[in-house]
């Protein structure tokens, strides 16, 4: 018997004012697994991620998290969101809060922790990502790569079922790509379940060989980058993965 996936996306459809952005996406993410979804800009990667925590309401289809249906009425959306750690493309740190407060805010306001307890937990996550020394700085005072680590710490602090990353390298210097990949791999090594979408082939290649290719709203292909770039029958897919970067 095969284990039940942590996240199960079935026939997910999303229309934006008559435009079909997701046209029946199927996707499984296993507990402790790492999934990289690739595809050209505008293919619906961000929309797919946002359906997972209902920042975007799917038009049809289902999503299950740990066997529980999260699409449809009657779901506690705020509880669902607390269980999905989201790292945005531009990191979206709260600019008026220090690094420490960025990470501890949700712990205090949603988990009901006292400040001391929340800060201890936040410091643990910051230390894990080598950002402890920057605790009192504001987002405007740290680099892009550091912002990303804080955003990751903020997501991890809530002990989410899955950490979701939207284009983790698009706002960073390309020289940081390998570093980001290493970071993601390290978290994977620590049993964090990860879902990462990117159009950056170099990043994907540095994280994992197995990827999912999303195009025009559906999963077109799934497999190793090696295979997709050389042996896939669709020339467009071979071409996409043949480039060093999908930019």
């Amino acid at each position, binding site marked *: 018997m095969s284990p039940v996936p942590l996240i199960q996306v079935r026939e997910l459809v999303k229309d934006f004012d008559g435009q079909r952005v997701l046209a029946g996406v199927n996707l499984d993410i296993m507990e402790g697994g790492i999934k990289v979804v690739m595809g050209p800009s505008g293919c619906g990667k961000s929309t797919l991620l946002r359906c997972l925590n209902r920042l975007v309401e799917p038009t049809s289809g289902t999503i299950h998290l740990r066997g529980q249906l999260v699409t449809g009425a009657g779901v506690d959306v705020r509880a669902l*969101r607390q269980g*999905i750690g989201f790292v*945005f493309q531009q990191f979206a740190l*709260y*600019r*008026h809060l220090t690094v420490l407060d960025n990470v501890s805010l949700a712990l205090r*306001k949603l988990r009901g922790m006292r400040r001391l307890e929340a800060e201890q937990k936040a410091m643990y996550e910051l230390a894990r990502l080598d950002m402890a020394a920057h605790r009192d700085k*504001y*987002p*405007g005072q740290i680099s892009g790569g550091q912002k990303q680590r804080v955003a990751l710490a903020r997501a991890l602090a809530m002990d989410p079922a899955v950490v979701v990353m939207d284009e983790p390298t698009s706002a960073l210097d390309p020289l940081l790509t390998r570093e980001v990949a290493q970071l993601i791999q390290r978290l994977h090594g620590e049993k964090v379940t990860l879902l990462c979408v990117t159009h950056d082939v170099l990043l994907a290649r540095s994280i994992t060989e197995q990827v999912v290719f999303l195009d025009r709203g559906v999963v077109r292909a799934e497999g190793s980058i090696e295979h997709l770039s050389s042996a896939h029958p669709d020339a467009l897919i071979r071409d996409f993965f043949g480039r060093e970067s999908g930019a």
Partner: protein
Amino acid sequence: MNFLDILALLARGAGYTVLVTLACSATGLIVGLAIATLRRLRLPVVLPLLDVYTYVFRGIPVLVLLFIVYFGLPGIGLKVPPLLSMVLSLGLIAGAYLAEVFRGALESVDAAEILAAQASGLGRLQVLALIELPQMLRFAVPGMVNEFTTVLKYSPFAYTVGLPEITKQATTLTATTQRGLEIYLAVGLMYFAVFRILLIAVRWIERRYRVPGMVPA
């Protein structure tokens, strides 16, 4: 009456000026914040009412509204004391202007941060209170200083409803002492001093809450 006595009387008037300015500014702040917040929540029935409020109160002259409140309302049996009349005219008008200042400042809050806060599971009111308002208030400082200054400059209208503020004192003193030039120069200096103190207070608060590296989105 020597000039020191005159200054003492003017200073007492300046106290009323400060009182009127603070009362009307505080009212404006509360009303402006309430309107901007309610508007941000996009409540369907309330929204048009807020628009009507800002539309009307930004269009009506302060003095006309003051006279409606102070001289008009007693006609229907509502006697409003002078300071309250100022609050209900100048204060409410300042509220309408500040609502616009806050609306603009709220638009400078990064939409991605609001989304991130929602994605973390925070509710709409929490996002407003923890992310949007704290950032917005910092962005709104120049507009707020502007509006408080305007309130200060309109405060002499309090004299028309019998509050012994500084301009009123000056008029009376000029009539009895014939030393109009010195008196009005002193009045000008006192307004300037009040203005500077207001500015210093705002700058102090601004520095206290300044966030390094934060600029409007």
